[in-house]
């Protein structure tokens, strides 16, 4: 029995980690550089990132493998290192985790569209996800977080790849935009439909990450809660980014976000964490808020 699911069954509200991309960019990753390569070239940095989040209060961290699929890595000519970079990403996080802290293997979109929207076949995409699942499993993850997804068909292939080959829990989160007629992913999926369908597909935990700021995310989580009994996870952006003098700035402070966390939990979230623009300070603030 996996302790992550046990803790959720007991009714615990858990804290995930903050952003990976911005951390790496602040520690030497060039704009346009390959984050996953850091697992090989800057192992101490990746390890320190996980340690920092655990120390700030994270119950779980995600591996530095978001863009670790073959489709994504081949853009950097690293297609032959898929297994290695995914495995290393898990190992670095594993080393930083204590016995009651969890490591989630991050699996992001492949960047390809399934036929007929694009050229990828379901079989090919399944294999791509399986490759990542295998690398992450051999590195010692406690589960998978299939995230920032817009397409139900793509996410279902990733869920199947994980479920067919491991017993580890699978978390799936989608990214929503707000338009004139409500919340939709780029491919037209609503939060309610996502929650229902992903539960049907066998995801152990469902949710949303990225896209909008905390205000909108509370609404999204509430909508998802109305359509599933599964635990819900959310990774929230530190606001909508703006450009100030050529630099990307995420405006939402740890205090601003932490203040809304109780509302987020009330809306139905069981695991809360940060996405783009968040750092260990945000996580510290969340942890303090949840303890009080």
């Amino acid at each position: 029995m996996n302790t992550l699911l046990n803790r959720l069954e007991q009714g615990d509200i858990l804290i995930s980690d903050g952003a990976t991309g911005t951390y790496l960019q602040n520690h030497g990753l060039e704009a346009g550089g390959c984050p996953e390569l850091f697992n090989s070239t800057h192992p101490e940095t990746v390890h320190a990132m996980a340690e920092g989040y655990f120390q700030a209060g994270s119950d779980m961290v995600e591996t530095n493998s978001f863009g670790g699929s073959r489709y994504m890595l081949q853009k950097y000519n690293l297609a032959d290192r898929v297994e290695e970079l995914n495995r290393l990403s898990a190992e670095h996080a594993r080393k930083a985790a204590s016995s009651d802290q969890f490591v989630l293997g991050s699996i992001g979109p492949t960047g390809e569209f399934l036929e007929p929207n694009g050229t990828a076949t379901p079989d090919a995409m399944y294999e791509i996800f399986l490759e990542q699942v295998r690398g992450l499993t051999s590195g010692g993850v406690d589960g998978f977080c299939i995230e920032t997804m817009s397409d139900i068909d793509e996410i279902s292939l990733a869920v199947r790849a994980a479920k067919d080959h491991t017993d580890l829990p699978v978390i799936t989160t989608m990214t929503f935009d707000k338009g004139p007629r409500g919340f939709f992913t780029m491919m037209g999926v609503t939060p309610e439909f996502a929650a229902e369908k992903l539960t049907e597909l066998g995801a152990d935990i469902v949710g949303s990450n990225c896209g909008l700021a905390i205000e909108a995310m509370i609404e999204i989580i509430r909508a998802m809660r109305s359509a599933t009994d599964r635990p819900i996870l959310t990774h929230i952006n530190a606001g909508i980014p703006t450009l100030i003098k050529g630099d990307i700035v995420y405006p939402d402070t740890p205090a601003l976000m932490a203040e809304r966390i109780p509302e987020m939990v009330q809306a139905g979230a069981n695991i809360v964490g940060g996405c783009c623009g968040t750092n260990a300070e945000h996580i510290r603030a969340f942890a303090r808020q949840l303890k009080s």
Partner: protein
Amino acid sequence: MVELTDIQNTSLRQEITEYVEKVNERQHLIQLYSKARPDLQDIAAAIVAGDHETVDRLTEKALQEEIQALEVMDDGLIAGMALVGIKFRENFIFVPEVLACARAMKAGMKHIEPILSASGIKPVGKVIMGTVKGDLHDIGKNLCIMMLRGAGFEVIDLGVDTSSDDFIDAVEEYEAPIVGMSALLTTTMPNMGKTIEAFIDADLRDDVKFMVGGAPVTPAFADDMGADAYGDSAVECVDIAKRFVATADS
């Protein structure tokens, strides 16, 4: 004044009724479709339906019946995409549907393009298009390129992950006065500004007009970085390019 019932194609009438809420847009589309030949209205309807087989067949047929290629393109293909753009903006359809409509447009353009090139009609203008450095997204860019070519522009597509140097080299090689830049990620948006700066440094800024677009881009951001125009749709992209050409000629 023309009315909805002046449009012969029933599907177009239904689409306008169901999906076009703004009065001025309704009127514009009613004008657009009602003045087109019924055969071309059918093409527009097939574009909206994302039905590439029907668009293919009907475009070929219209050309065989010696309807002018430009008329088939404007009143059939481009007219159809106008409604697609509105439905997408209003969240009635999403990326998969837009891609199907783009495929349908491509199927029609396959018949139109050879005629336009063979006619020796000079391109309306020359445009360099690219998604900026570090960004691999191109759906929007590709849609804009299709519409620009459809409107008679010669378009050089630099693809994705385009550096400032790539843009400069292309402008010099093709002597193109218009550059269109696209970004889907906030993290790559600054590269638009960097590219414009590179043109200033290379003393080329005055030789080109920049238009920018992409989901995270805003008019304020476009202004801040010194772009000449911002567009939020493929249709607007074409309007901007036409405006650039018109002001250059004056």
